[in-house]
């Protein structure tokens, strides 16, 4: 007679099943968010680290040698990963599971493991730089800080009933609410990436000791590359909100506003670019002369407006196809930012003309209404 192996108890089976279900309900969302952050960080790092001049060891030394720089980068890192860590606590799929008898330690162990895993890019950077102790320290400290901040209770706010005096204001306010409420985490992440883009551009200038025209040319190009991960999720959410509002806009007669809204989106691209520029100049304050700063300002305005204007066109294009084509939008954004950087590199000040003209064209060629 064949021997029968030891059978697990119903309680153990129940715990195992609960843990498996919890992992399936909770982990995919935060992992997806963390991977998106990693991709964005790799894009920014790819333009500043390695062959382009900034050695990993120099970056690690900068972080630990200059407390302000270290604190700013740590704050940006927390801002980037906070939404992912937060989702570990608030995942909707886990709400029901809490009502069931649950294993005590498994969720905590998985949460801790994921918080540590999120720090992988920093750990890799330190290991490549040969700073093994720093790798361990930053990984543990980053996971602990993320874990603590993710448990903070945000104050609940009762939204007041608004009064909008015009259709355009109402439309813009609704879109802003849609993007913030559906994807507030993306907005936080975008803010982090905008700051990171500026710092990366500043770091690039410092590491390569750029002077004269090179400051504005290379600085602006690195800055635009950093704006891709910042703007891509916003663009996708913008399309999403527009799609969800479409039937209501039609029934409410919210038509003929498209071009005005394209102008506003173009201006938001410009503002985003200027914020990144401010971060960059703050980081390279000693190295940028007035004339180079003025050129940079011009590039940031023209390039930012172009990226914003094309975001408006891109969202319209995606909407006409009746689906949110996120990957295509990201590819389009990468092409636009690369083309912007190359145009600046080739034409220097003369590039302001085609970039500005392209931005104006993108907005003015937007049809007034879409029915």
């Amino acid at each position: 007679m064949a021997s029968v192996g030891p059978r697990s108890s119903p309680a153990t089976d129940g715990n195992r099943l609960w843990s498996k279900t919890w992992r399936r309900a909770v982990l995919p969302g935060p992992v997806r968010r963390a991977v998106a952050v990693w991709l964005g960080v790799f894009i920014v790092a790819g333009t500043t680290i390695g062959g382009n001049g900034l050695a990993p060891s120099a970056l690690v030394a900068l972080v630990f040698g200059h407390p302000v720089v270290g604190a700013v980068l740590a704050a940006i890192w927390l801002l980037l990963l906070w939404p992912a860590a937060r989702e570990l606590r608030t995942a909707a799929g886990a709400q029901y599971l809490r009502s069931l008898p649950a294993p005590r330690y498994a969720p905590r162990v998985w949460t801790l493991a994921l918080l540590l895993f999120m720090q992988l890019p920093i750990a890799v950077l330190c290991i490549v730089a040969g700073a093994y102790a720093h790798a361990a320290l930053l990984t543990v400290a980053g996971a602990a800080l993320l874990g603590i901040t993710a448990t903070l209770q945000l104050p609940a706010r009762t939204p007041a009933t608004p009064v909008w005096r015009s259709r355009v204001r109402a439309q813009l306010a609704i879109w802003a609410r849609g993007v913030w409420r559906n994807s507030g985490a993306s907005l936080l992440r975008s803010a982090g990436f905008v700051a990171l883009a500026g710092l990366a551009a500043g770091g690039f200038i410092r590491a390569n000791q750029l002077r004269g025209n090179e400051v504005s040319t290379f600085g602006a190009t690195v800055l635009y590359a950093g704006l891709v991960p910042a703007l891509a999720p916003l663009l996708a959410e913008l399309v999403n909100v527009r799609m969800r509002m479409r039937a209501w806009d039609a029934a409410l007669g919210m038509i003929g506003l498209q071009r005005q809204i394209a102008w506003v989106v173009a201006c938001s691209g410009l503002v985003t670019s200027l914020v990144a520029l401010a971060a960059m100049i703050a980081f390279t304050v000693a190295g940028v002369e007035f004339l180079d700063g003025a050129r940079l300002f011009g590039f940031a305005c023209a390039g930012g407006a172009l990226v914003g204007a094309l975001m408006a066109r891109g969202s319209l294009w995606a909407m006409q196809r009746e689906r949110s084509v996120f990957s295509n939008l990201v590819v389009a954004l990468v092409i636009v930012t690369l083309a912007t950087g190359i145009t600046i590199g080739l034409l220097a000040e003369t590039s302001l003309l085609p970039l500005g003209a392209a931005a104006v064209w993108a907005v003015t060629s937007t049809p007034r209404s879409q029915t």
Partner: protein
Amino acid sequence: MRLTIDRVVLRRGNRNVINGASYQVAAGEIVALVGANGCGKSTLLAGVAGVLAPISGQITVDELDVWGKPAAQYAARARFGYVPENADAPGFLTGGELVALAAAARRGMAPTPAIIDALGLGELAPVRIDRMSLGQRRRACLGAAFAGPPQLLILDEPDNGLDVARLQALTSLLRTFAAGGGAVLLASHDRDFATQLDARIQLLAS
């Protein structure tokens, strides 16, 4: 105010759901579209409300084409309020924001205190639509439809999901609206509801 639906053809997927429908609704009139499930009541109302474009035919409000040039479209659509079948307003909005949006779109005012009270909009104002029940969503959408105020109400099963007290309040509101010169085009499965409204019943065949 006069709504004219003239030989309208509406398609969902590859099927013509409405084939050459023609109706008229005049000021002060309540018209109830009645018909079996899937006969196209909601499709017709979506076409009238500017949500689903007709293949052919014309829909006008006071001679203004709902599907015409942008200026005419806006002028036509500013005259009506619409409640869709599932009351599926964007979930990220609060009840108050939905009503404010409708008022801004029609360059008009929020609903009167009597309407706010009858529909219980005060308690829904700070609540997100994706956290509302079907009846609450319906009330928020009715509030948005009454903002402006409109001259025509297009209501797709407005009684669905409402409790008895709110249903009575809605009946009273619609009768008052029609008595004041407004027009109502609604779809309902409930003939009793249409009878209480003294509505002209139009049978929509499959």
